[in-house]
C-alpha cells in the first residue's frame, strides 16, 4: 500500500516538474463556411507570458481562428490546446479572458452586475472590491452602477476589457480591443497590455493598428487568405534594413553586384536593396565601393529600417503575386 502511495507521489512530482505548456497551441486549423474557406491551415503557439500579435488583411481568418480556439466555432480540421487542455473541453477556458470584436453586453444590467455575472460563470472567487478595481482600471469606476444600455460604444469596449480581465486570467484574447476607442483610450489599453505582459499573462492580440502591435507584442503571426503568411519575433521580422541608392550609369555587372547584397527593386534611378537581418557593418560601405569601381555614379545612399507596416504589405503583396 505504501509503495503505491509513494509511486503516486513521485508521479505527481514528475507532472509538477514538467515545463508549463504553451498558453495556446493549435495545429492545422481549418474552417469553411459554405464554399468560402475562412481558415485554410493555421498553426500557431503563444507561450506563457508572451504577447502575440495576429495581423492580416480583412477576411484573412483572424477572428475565425480566435473563435475556434475559444470553442465558439467548430473547426473542420485541426487541433487546439489552451493552457494545457484541449480547446473542445470547456474547462480549458477557465483561466481565459476574451474581448470579442463584436462586444455587446447585457444592456439591462449595470457594469458591476455584468462583471459579477462573468465572475460567477467563470467559477472564480473574486471579491467585489477587486471587481471594482477592475472597472477602475479600464476607466469605468464612476459608471459602475449605471446600466450598460446607456454606455457609448467606447465605454462598452472598456467594459468588455474589464470582463476579459476580471476572473484573473492566465491568457487574454483580445479581438480588435481599441476599435471603438479614442487616442487616450488606445494609450490606456497599451499601458494595460504592457502591465499584463509584466505580470506574466499571455496575450493573443488581433489588431489592425500595426503601431500598437509593434509597441506591445513579442511575436507576430501574419495571416493571409486563411494561412500563416509569416511569423516570427519583431526582431526577426523587423531586423531587416532597406538600402536606397540613387545611381547613374549602372552596368550589368553593377546590377549583379547589387543583387548579391539582397532582394533588389528599381524605380527609375532609385535602387532599393532589402538587406538581410544578418548583415554586418561593412556590407553597405563595401557595396558602395564596388559600385564606384564599376564606374557607377552614386548620387545618394540611405539605409532605413523596414517598418512592420512595410513588412506586412510586402508579405501580403508577395503572397498575392504567387
Amino acid at each position, binding site marked *: 500500500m505504501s509503495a503505491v502511495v509513494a509511486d503516486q507521489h513521485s508521479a505527481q512530482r514528475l507532472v509538477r516538474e514538467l515545463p508549463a505548456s504553451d498558453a495556446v497551441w493549435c495545429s492545422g486549423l481549418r474552417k469553411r*463556411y459554405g464554399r468560402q474557406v475562412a481558415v485554410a491551415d493555421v498553426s500557431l503557439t503563444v507561450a506563457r507570458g508572451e504577447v502575440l500579435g495576429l495581423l492580416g488583411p480583412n477576411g484573412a481568418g483572424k477572428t475565425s481562428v480566435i*473563435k475556434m480556439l*475559444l*470553442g*465558439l*466555432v*467548430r473547426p473542420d480540421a485541426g487541433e487546439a490546446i489552451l493552457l494545457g487542455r484541449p480547446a473542445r473541453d*470547456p*474547462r*480549458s*477556458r*477557465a483561466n*481565459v479572458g*476574451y*474581448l*470579442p470584436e*463584436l*462586444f*455587446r*453586453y*447585457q444592456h*439591462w*444590467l449595470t457594469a458591476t452586475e455584468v462583471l459579477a*455575472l*462573468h465572475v*460567477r*460563470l*467563470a*467559477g472564480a472567487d473574486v471579491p467585489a472590491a477587486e471587481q471594482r478595481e477592475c472597472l477602475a482600471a479600464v476607466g469605468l469606476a464612476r459608471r459602475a452602477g449605471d446600466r450598460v444600455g446607456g454606455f457609448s460604444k467606447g465605454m462598452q469596449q472598456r467594459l*468588455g476589457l474589464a*470582463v*476579459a480581465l476580471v476572473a484573473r486570467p492566465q491568457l487574454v484574447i483580445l479581438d480588435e480591443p481599441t476599435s471603438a476607442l479614442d487616442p487616450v483610450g488606445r494609450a490606456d489599453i497599451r499601458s494595460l497590455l504592457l502591465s499584463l505582459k509584466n505580470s506574466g499573462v499571455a496575450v493573443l492580440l488581433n489588431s489592425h493598428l500595426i503601431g500598437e502591435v509593434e509597441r506591445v507584442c513579442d511575436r507576430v503571426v501574419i495571416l493571409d487568405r486563411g494561412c500563416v503568411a509569416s511569423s516570427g519575433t519583431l526582431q526577426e521580422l523587423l531586423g531587416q534594413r532597406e538600402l536606397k541608392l540613387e545611381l547613374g550609369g549602372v552596368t550589368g555587372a553593377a546590377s549583379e553586384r547589387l543583387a548579391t547584397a539582397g532582394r533588389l527593386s528599381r524605380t527609375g534611378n532609385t535602387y532599393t536593396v532589402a538587406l538581410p537581418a544578418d548583415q554586418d557593418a561593412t556590407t553597405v560601405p563595401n557595396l558602395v565601393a564596388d559600385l564606384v569601381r564599376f564606374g557607377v555614379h552614386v548620387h545618394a545612399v540611405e539605409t532605413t529600417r523596414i517598418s512592420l507596416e512595410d513588412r506586412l504589405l510586402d508579405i501580403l503583396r508577395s503572397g498575392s503575386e504567387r
Partner: protein
Amino acid sequence: MSARIPLTVAAMTLREAVRRRVVWAVTAMTVVLLSLSAWGFQRIGAELDTLTSGEARLVASQVLNVVLFGLSLIAALGTTFLAGPSLAGEIESGMALALLARPLRRSDVLLGKWLGLAAFGTTFVTVAGLSQLLIVRITTGYWPPSPMTGLALLATQTTVLLTLALLLATAVSPMASGIVAVGLFGATWIAGVVGGVGESLGNQGVARVGTVSRMLLPTDGLWRGAMQAFQDRGALTQMGAEFDGFPFLSEAPLTLAYLTWVLTWTCVVAAITTMSFARRDL
C-alpha cells in the same frame, strides 16, 4: 454536473424579464383582462339568479374557460417573445460571444434559459389563473372541480411552447422564432377546433386533423385537459349533442398515455435544441 451555470443563467433570464419590462407589460395586460372579467362576471352573477343552479354553474364555467384562454394566450406571447430575444437575440447581437467563451457547456446555458423562462411562465399562470378563479368564486360562487390540475396543465402548455420557441431561437432570428412559435400555437388551436367539428359531424378525416395537431404540438391537447379541469362536471350532459365541437368545452380528461407523450415530446425537442445549439457557429 454542477447546477451553478444553469441557476446563474436562469436568474439572469428572470432578471432580464423584469428589467426589460416584459413582466410589467404582461402584468398590465393581465390586470386589464382580470378587471374586465371581474366586471363581466359581476354582471353575469346578477343574471344568474334567474337560472337554475346547474345552468348558473355551466355559464360561469364556460365564461371562465374563455377568459383563461385569454390568459394562456398572454402567457404564450410573453414567454415566446422573451425566449426569442433571450437566445437568438444574444447570438445575433454578439452578446453570446463573451458569455459562451466562459468555461461552460452550451447545454447548461440552454437549461438555465429554459428554467428561467419556465419559472416565469409558471409563476404568471399560477398567479393570474388563481386570481381569475377567485374573481369567479367571489362574483358567481363557482369553483372549478380540479383547479390545481387545470393550472398545472396551463403551466405545462406554456412550458411546451417555450421549449419550441427555444428550438426555433437556435436556428432563426429572434422575431421569426417568436412569430413562428405563436403562429403554430394558434394554428394548433384552430386545428383542434376543426377536429372537434369533424368529430361532431362524424367525419373521421376532419376529426383526425385535431388528433394529429395535438400530437405534433401538444399545446392544444393540454389546453383541452385544463378546460376539463375548470369546467363544471355536468356541462357535457347539460349542453347536449348540439354543442359537440364547441371550442370551450372539453369532452374528456387527458389520458396518462397523452401526458407521457407530452413529456417525451418536450424531452425530444429539448434534445434537438441542445444539439442544434451545440453545433451552431457563433
